């Protein structure tokens, strides 16, 4: 204790990642450790950088769309929504009611699917493997719905400017209904495995705590912000795409820890199901695409269109110079900004908690690096 020896190597710097199963992609964290305690962390990102924003400046407004699927590939359906809404606003395109409803439904399906991936991988990182298998069972059904409607499971290219590509295929509504009828019992099942599980509580309660004030300072959004008691949900704050027509609650946490964020996401899945139920009950008929000019050429101007993606506020700042290619499309990536708080959240935590905290931030590196 008195004399420093080789055994108390006080500061140890290690690399976590980029190829590490618990970093959910290629995230590299330089951890500065004192024994098991984390003194500091520095994230190294950019391994998946493809220059999506640069590509957007060289494609027409319609051709940009598939690229945004590939930023956050776990929530490909909702990614498209923000951009499509923005361009429609700038072009003053009216979207038929039916398309609006279907969009809301698919976005909420996507939220459930995305939260199931989060739940499965997060629980698996912490050591509860069963939930992963259960969650992916339900996700598979949602992906089948995606495949029926969009023709793809992952890179869906879901929404088009002005509406949708195709109307719902026969049998879709029945299949969707079957899914949402079953789903509440499935969520209960996951909760049974985790919510009062002693190990789960030990690993998540009081881990990665961040106060509401700090969360705002860090610009967090999505469940990490709401977990700290700030009731900010873009669907409520600045309703878009028809969300003002549906009833849903915005769950809010108290302690700002990993456990609260877990509870919020579980509740969000239930709320998403509630929205889908309302869509299916009131689904109007009619066309699925509005009148769209052959060439999309918004007049000179700019628009910031944000949606509440599964991971937080996903914004598209679209600037038009009056030509058929965007002058600039800036993507406000929710996880890029959320990940910034990792450094603060892991300080003083144990190495094992770092993994829990990465999981609770629900990072998708494809979107962080763009």
């Amino acid at each position, binding site marked *: 204790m008195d004399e420093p020896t080789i055994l108390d190597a006080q500061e140890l710097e290690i690399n976590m990642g980029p190829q590490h199963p618990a970093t959910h992609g290629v995230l590299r964290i330089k951890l500065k450790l004192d024994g098991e305690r984390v003194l500091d962390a520095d994230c190294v990102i950019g391994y998946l950088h493809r220059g999506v924003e640069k590509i957007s400046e060289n494609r027409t407004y319609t051709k940009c769309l598939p690229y945004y699927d590939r930023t956050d590939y776990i929530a490909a359906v909702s990614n498209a929504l923000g951009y499509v809404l923005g361009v429609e606003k700038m072009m003053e395109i009216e979207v038929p009611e039916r398309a609006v409803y279907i969009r809301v439904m698919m976005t909420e399906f996507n939220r459930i699917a995305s939260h199931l991936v989060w739940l499965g991988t997060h629980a698996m990182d912490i050591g509860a493997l069963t939930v992963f298998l259960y969650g992916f069972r339900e996700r598979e059904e949602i992906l089948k719905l995606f495949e029926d409607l969009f023709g793809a499971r992952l890179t869906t290219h879901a929404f088009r400017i002005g509406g949708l590509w195709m109307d719902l295929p026969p049998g879709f509504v029945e299949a969707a209904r079957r899914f949402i009828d079953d789903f509440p019992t499935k969520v209960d099942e996951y909760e049974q495995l985790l919510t009062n599980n002693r190990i789960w509580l030990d690993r998540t309660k009081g881990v990665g705590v961040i106060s509401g004030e700090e969360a705002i300072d860090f610009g967090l959004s999505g469940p990490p912000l709401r977990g700290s008691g700030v009731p900010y949900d873009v669907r409520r704050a600045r309703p878009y795409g028809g969300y003002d027509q549906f009833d849903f609650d915005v769950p809010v946490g108290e302690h700002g820890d990993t456990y609260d964020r877990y509870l919020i996401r579980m509740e969000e899945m239930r709320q998403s199901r509630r929205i889908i139920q309302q869509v299916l009950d009131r689904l109007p008929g009619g066309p699925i695409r509005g009148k769209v000019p052959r060439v999309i050429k918004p007049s000179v101007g700019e628009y910031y269109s944000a949606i509440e993606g599964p991971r937080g506020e996903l914004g598209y700042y679209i600037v038009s110079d009056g*030509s058929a290619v965007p002058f600039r499309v800036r993507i406000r990536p929710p996880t890029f900004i959320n990940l910034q708080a990792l450094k*603060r959240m892991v300080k003083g935590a144990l190495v094992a908690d770092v993994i829990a905290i990465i999981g609770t931030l629900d990072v998708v590196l494809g979107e962080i690096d763009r």
Partner: protein
Amino acid sequence: MNEENKPGQPAPEGPSEGKTGDSSEAPAAAPKPAAPAGAGEVKEAKPKPAAAKKPPVKKGPSYEDLTDDPLLKDLRERFPDGILSGQTFLGQPIYTVSLNVLTEVMVYLRQSDQWAFDYLVDLTCLDYIGDEKRICMVYHLYSHKSGRLIRIKARAAADEMVPSMAPFWRTADWLEREAYDMFGVEFSGHPDLRRILLPDDWLGYPLRKDYDIKLQDQAWIRNHLRIRKVPE
């Protein structure tokens, strides 16, 4: 007010601005220029005819001046010379301020109880190549108290230092690093300004308009990826 707004007002910030000057020689440029310098102009050649055609057709939304906006009034009183314009586009207010009062305005917006814009939603840049002040900083601020979203803009020359917002919003830390990485904007007062998405020793700033999409740092690729001949 739109008629006089169109040619005049976008001048400090309208996206097509600045092209009006060089668009005369731009259309003559080859459609696929090998030189990166030509890359930006090809696309920007278009706005001029579009703008010229606009008044008769009168199509699409346009910039409008903010009238009776309490925030604009308050800012004008506090920073008489610093507030260049207050406009709105599709209902989203845009305040253009001069660079030398940017920090004061932002700090005031954050700290005043009346406005309380405590949430920096986004920070990014636009590159108006050919302008004297080609970099346009764009900040989106949101107030959890009032639920308002506003946009602040400030223009800077390419080699000008832009004050960092990182001391006031921790969000700005990485966002400014990204702006530096992609546009080469230098922020004064940033605690740790280095590249974030691209490798540290990469040359060039890819989101600048004179950086062609096919352009790569050939030397970097040769050295790090051991690719002898990089396809052009």
